[in-house]
């Protein structure tokens, strides 16, 4: 039972001052085992904050990140699943599912987590699953102003993943979940 937080596109301090208070109250240290961050934090203070939630922090570089040492893509294995991480501004057209599928096949991962569009999405195709946690602060994106703050928490338990989607809609936290299983062969 591994809890993995997927979060990103906070754009602090340029486009948003901080995480919404309701999100912050839920994100307490000690519960989450891994954090994967799509990028665009943008500053070190946010990095430190995320690190305080969980020491296992994985970040990829977004175009506005001030720390240039983050990698462009990252892959890691958690339990039975291979996860891939990429900010997504490199994949053109932005948010296009077929292109993301191409990236997923390149990285050879079961679950690809990308951001940049600031819209939550969970999409399945033959090569695997693509998850976009959206923007945790609700920062505006190059594509749209109308952004709901959201992030994703994945509960990886053996061959099964439960994805909990946390969205802040009209000031209230709404939680949904998505279930999927991995078949015992390499791809979903």
């Amino acid at each position: 039972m591994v809890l993995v937080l997927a979060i990103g596109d906070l754009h602090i301090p340029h486009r948003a001052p901080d995480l919404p208070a309701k999100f912050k109250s839920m994100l307490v240290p000690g519960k989450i085992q891994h954090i994967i961050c799509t990028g665009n934090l943008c500053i070190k203070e946010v990095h430190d904050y995320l690190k305080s939630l969980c020491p296992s922090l994985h970040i990829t570089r977004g175009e506005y990140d001030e720390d240039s040492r983050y990698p462009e893509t990252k892959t890691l294995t958690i339990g039975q699943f291979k996860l891939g991480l990429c900010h997504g501004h490199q994949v053109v057209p932005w948010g296009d599912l077929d292109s993301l599928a191409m990236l997923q096949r390149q990285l050879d991962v079961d679950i690809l987590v990308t951001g940049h569009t600031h819209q939550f999405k969970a999409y399945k195709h033959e090569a695997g699953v693509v998850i976009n946690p959206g923007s945790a602060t609700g920062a505006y994106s190059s594509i749209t102003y109308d952004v709901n703050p959201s992030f994703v928490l994945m509960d990886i338990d053996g061959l099964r993943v439960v994805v909990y989607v946390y969205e802040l809609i009209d000031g209230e936290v709404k939680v949904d979940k998505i279930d999927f299983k991995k078949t015992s062969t390499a791809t979903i």
Partner: protein
Amino acid sequence: MTTQGRRGTSSQPVIVSEEQTNAHTDTYTVCIGTLAEKADQESELMVKKRVPDWLNNSMLSSPPLIISPPSKLQSQSPPAPTVIQPPVPIPPPTLIRPEPPTKPAVTPRTEFIDPLRRSSGSDNDISSSVEDVSRQSNLLQELSRRIINMRELRRLASEGIPDGAGIRSTVWKLLLGYLPSDKLLWSSELAKKRSQYKQFKEEFLTNPSEITRKFEDSTSLQHGNNTSAGKGLLPRSDIPHGEHPLSLGETSVWNQFFQDTEIIDQIDRDVKRTHPDMHFFCGDSAASKANQDALRNILIVYAKLNPGIRYVQGMNELLAPLFYVFKNDPDEDFSENAEADTFFCFVELLSGFRDNFVQQLDDSVVGIRSTISKLSMLLKEHDEELWRHLDITTKVNPQFYAFRWITLLLTQEFNFTDSLHIWDTLLSDPQGLQKTLLRVCCAMLILVRRRLLAGDFTANLKLLQSYPSTNISHLLYVANKLRSHP
């Protein structure tokens, strides 16, 4: 019987023991100045009755011996040979030195052979194995009855239980009330309790993921299309009961789980540290990992079932001997289900002790402080000089040493086998666990009184906090003597 340390004032006949039975395996070496005639006559009688001839020959050179007056509870077992040893000081682990006969003894110098120890001398071996066999046969005989006489069992057990043949495991289960005394009820009781434990485990040890999964499986239809769909947005569904991992709700399964992780971490740490010198508990083998897991499970279930007391450091030490004894039962059925059996016996054991562990009750009448002061009073009653020296002169607060003695039932003061032997006595004494424990602690103090009287605060504290190893039978014998008389 009060024991005064004053020189030359004792005029009472010193009776060696009041309640030891003929199955007792003590060896008595007494050198006391004053002997009552009556005791002498009794001893002759005893010798004639109890000691077979071949043993009788070996002790012709000993000075007048006093053996315990025949106990009324002459059991039907064959007369156990009482080994009497010539008063040659055997290099004993005990600290009692034979005092010159002019000084009346606080406690009569008696040396016992601990049958479980076989520590000293070859002639002891023969006698101890003989004792062992007889004791074992007595116990087996008692255990083989259909309805077990608990009084008799307690009496036999208080002398010590031999190590072999799973006797200790069964006797402890009987003493702790886990097994009923009617053997026919055993199988149904055991089945009931074991399934109950299994239920507890399922209830308390599953993590929230599994719980929520079970929830969905039972309430909604499975989303069969998840695995088969080729492409498309994944459907979002509602979460059951507002349960999500970051939930802060009081009733949330996840929240409770995270709140419990603190305790579970603590339990984990303590379990890993339990008896690091024993392969049974610590080591790389699968068996020791399984044992540690069992300990962990028991402690977690107990903590969850008892929110008032949860887990307190030290409970693992109380659990370890129980589990060790039950797991090493040669009977396969018992050994496999040792975890469930240990859980219930642990509950029973702690039931008398719970108040010692609850911090809020520390200062109350039932708390640990009052227990410690009871020990102090007991010491004062039996050995005022020592009490005065400890409490007033050297100001050794009994809390410094007695706390660990009492809460951990002396598991930390002696090595593992010795503590098993002590537990035999503690569990079987009809006076009850706490009273017996206090008597044993008092005996521990009295046995080292010479060193204590000679020492200052630091020396005494050091001595009491790392209590030197002694002859356990002797210790228990002295403790027995401290039994108060109405």
